[in-house]
């Protein structure tokens, strides 16, 4: 007998047509699945009543094991037990080499030519997918994630009593195209239909029903075990928009534990050189004390020393607060940066949503409250709030709530642009533009008779291509030969709701077309995004100078090119020897100056050349007009 859930009025489905949907929080350490049952979003437990599924996959001799059982085996079977695979999603070998020393796995460093969509290009060999060698053969991060998703989906289908029509999977707001695509690939591999990917902070805001409110600006403070993320969201005309994001990918509750463990070591007179067992015992002890101090004012500490002795002490909340204050201060600095990026003040923030287990620490709540001058929202379990928001969104997208029009918008984290002549970046979609978005811009050819155009898509805030991140390159071929500047090439950047970028170039007079979908090149962490933003501010003046210089150089080159073409055509007919020598000299001067680093002298040289050329240009003009009019009667020109 099928068990039924209560539906919204008019939404009860015919038998076997229930639109079952789930929200999945695919986390670095733990994952969760949630669904809306009888109008209530709840996380779904497994048969043992556990809601959290450790994001650990073990390739055991008897088959694939996911979750707590895999996590337990991590110590004895590290090479076949994959943890924290989210950090590898959408990353190339290049990134991995930098993470390499911390990864316990046996990584196969070789190029893998996976069947990607035609036209996709990846640079620097970065499209090569890292493979982890296990006893079941080589597995990719996408395949490992698919195992986690499969386990969660199976749990959901058992709990809901039917097949899922679709899922919403959450990803960090700073995930780039490659990381998002990898997440979608994993879902497809797990046999799941992805309604959409949803940014984690947006999901948290949805869980609190902030989307049902009037307009307002909200902050989502997400302090997990190992990472910190801050996001500023704006609800505008019923639409959610991520205004800015920030954070620290290496700051979390684990650092609180470490600070406390060090304090205990100092108090107990222990040296730094502890054996791993003692180290682990100390960390566990610190975690326990930290959790106790969330509910009581002081805690007793009992520690067995390596020499068999015992140490006993106590710590009160105030001392603990003193230990973690510098860490919390770092998160608050990131919050202030995010506020500045979003262009809002702390006073404008209406609600502060707390996400992540570490937001249970009272001192964190206090300090966050001080900064935003608002009581942080803590009533939804901070470990589950993201999954719950995803479930609510999945329910809407499955069509179980017809009157709802919840459209959640996100922003791109770094500007997208094209390389133009001189290695300069033409920004086409500025950062923090809400997605989905389509922007187009016209480009033209630089040389006479140019039949192809190389397009280089870059990401970043700097003015020179060399300072930005290269995403893709492609060529538009088959442009009909025309004079420089006559071709009209429309380049369109489209970013879909999941942040995937599609660039197309169309030559409008001939209709020739080319395009690229940006596929896994290497990933980008939030700290890199932050660095790129910082650099763009620090180098703003250098960039302006570099742009001015390059622009002058390009202009000098264009003039040189055009003049040489003209001289070759009719220089001998229209100029006497003296004039020609004058022009040649000014031209030579410009070519020499263009190689210099002084934009003003290049400009002066170009202007000087243009001046010398004035009579010549005039004569050419008259000649071409005469040629055009030759053989025509005057009255033909009068209309």
């Amino acid at each position, binding site marked *: 007998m099928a068990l039924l859930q209560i539906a919204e009025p008019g939404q009860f489905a*015919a038998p*076997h047509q229930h639109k079952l949907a789930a929200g999945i929080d695919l986390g670095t350490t733990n994952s969760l699945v949630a669904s809306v049952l009888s109008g209530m979003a709840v996380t779904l437990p497994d048969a043992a009543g556990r809601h959290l599924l450790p994001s650990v996959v073990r390739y055991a001799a008897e088959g694939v094991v996911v979750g707590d059982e895999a996590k337990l085996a991590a110590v004895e079977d590290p090479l076949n037990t994959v943890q924290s695979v989210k950090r590898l999603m959408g990353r190339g070998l290049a990134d991995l080499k930098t993470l390499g020393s911390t990864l316990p796995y046996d990584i196969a460093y070789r190029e893998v030519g996976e069947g990607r969509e035609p036209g996709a290009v990846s640079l620097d060999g970065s499209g090569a997918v890292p493979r982890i060698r296990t006893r079941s053969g080589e597995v990719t991060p996408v395949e490992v994630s698919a195992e986690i998703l499969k386990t969660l989906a199976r749990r959901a289908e058992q709990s809901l*009593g039917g097949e899922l029509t679709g899922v919403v999977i959450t990803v960090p707001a700073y995930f780039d195209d490659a990381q998002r695509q990898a997440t979608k690939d994993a879902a497809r591999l797990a046999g799941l239909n992805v309604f959409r990917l949803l940014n984690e902070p947006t999901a948290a805001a949805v869980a609190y029903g902030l989307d049902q409110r009037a307009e307002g600006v909200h902050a989502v403070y997400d302090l997990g075990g190992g990472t910190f993320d801050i996001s500023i969201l704006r609800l505008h005309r019923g639409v959610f928009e991520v205004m800015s994001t920030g954070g620290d990918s290496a700051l979390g509750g684990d650092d609180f534990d470490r600070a406390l463990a060090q304090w205990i070591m100092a108090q107990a007179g222990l040296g730094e050189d502890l054996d791993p067992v003692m180290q682990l015992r100390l960390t566990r002890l610190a975690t326990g004390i930290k959790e106790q101090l969330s509910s009581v004012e002081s805690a007793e500490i009992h520690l067995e020393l390596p020499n068999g002795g015992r140490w006993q002490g106590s710590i009160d909340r105030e001392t603990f607060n003193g230990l973690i204050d510098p860490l919390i201060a770092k998160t608050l600095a990131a919050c202030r940066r995010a506020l500045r990026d979003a262009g809002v003040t702390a006073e404008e923030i209406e609600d502060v949503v707390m996400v992540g287990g570490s937001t249970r620490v009272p001192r964190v709540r206090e300090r966050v409250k001080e900064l935003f001058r608002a009581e942080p929202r803590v009533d939804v379990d901070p470990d589950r709030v993201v999954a719950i928001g995803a479930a609510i969104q999945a329910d809407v997208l499955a069509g179980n709530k017809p009157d709802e029009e919840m459209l959640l918008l996100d922003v791109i984290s770094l500007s997208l642009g094209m390389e133009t002549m001189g290695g300069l970046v033409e920004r086409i979609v500025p950062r923090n533009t809400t997605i989905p978005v389509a922007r187009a811009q016209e480009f033209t050819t630089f040389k006479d008779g140019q039949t192809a155009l190389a397009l280089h898509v870059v990401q970043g805030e700097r003015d020179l291509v060399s300072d930005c991140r290269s995403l893709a390159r492609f060529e538009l071929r088959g442009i009909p030969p025309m004079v420089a500047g006559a071709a009209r090439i429309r380049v369109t950047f489209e970013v879909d709701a999941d942040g995937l970028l599609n660039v197309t170039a169309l030559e409008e007079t001939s209709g020739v077309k080319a395009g690229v979908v940006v596929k896994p090149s290497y990933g980008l962490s939030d700290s890199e995004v932050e660095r790129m933003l910082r650099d763009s501010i620090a180098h703003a003046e250098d960039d302006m100078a570099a742009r001015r210089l390059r622009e002058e150089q390009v202009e000098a080159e264009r003039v040189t090119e055009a003049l040489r073409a003209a001289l070759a055509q009719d220089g001998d007919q229209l100029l006497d020897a003296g004039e020609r020598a004058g022009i040649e000299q000014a031209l030579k001067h410009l070519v020499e100056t263009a190689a210099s680093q002084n934009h003003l002298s290049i400009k002066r040289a170009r202007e000087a050349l243009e001046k010398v050329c004035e009579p010549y240009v005039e004569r050419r003009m008259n000649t071409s007009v005469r040629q055009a009019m030759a053989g025509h009667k005057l009255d033909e020109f009068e209309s």
Partner: protein
Amino acid sequence: MAITLTEAAASHIAKFLKNRGKGAGLRLGVKTSGCSGMAYLLEFADQIEAEDSVFEDHGIKVIIDPKSLVYLDGTELDFVKEGLNEGFKFNNPNVKGQCGCGESFQV
């Protein structure tokens, strides 16, 4: 004529209504569709129509339209857990046969 709720069903309905924040009660009904004749319907009710019958059990208003009532009279609505799956179950004395899944039935 009556419809009843088990204790478990009533407490879950109360929780769901509270979470939803609005609603006059719970609407039960039958529809003439499904793989074996009739199908159950279970929805939140925002309004009560003039012809509806309303039963109150454990403080919950159960609302049924007159056409459905003849098929559901004497039904007890239960909330049960079967493995990981939990949800509502109609214990309907009028049922003579049902499809394998139990989502539709014959009288």
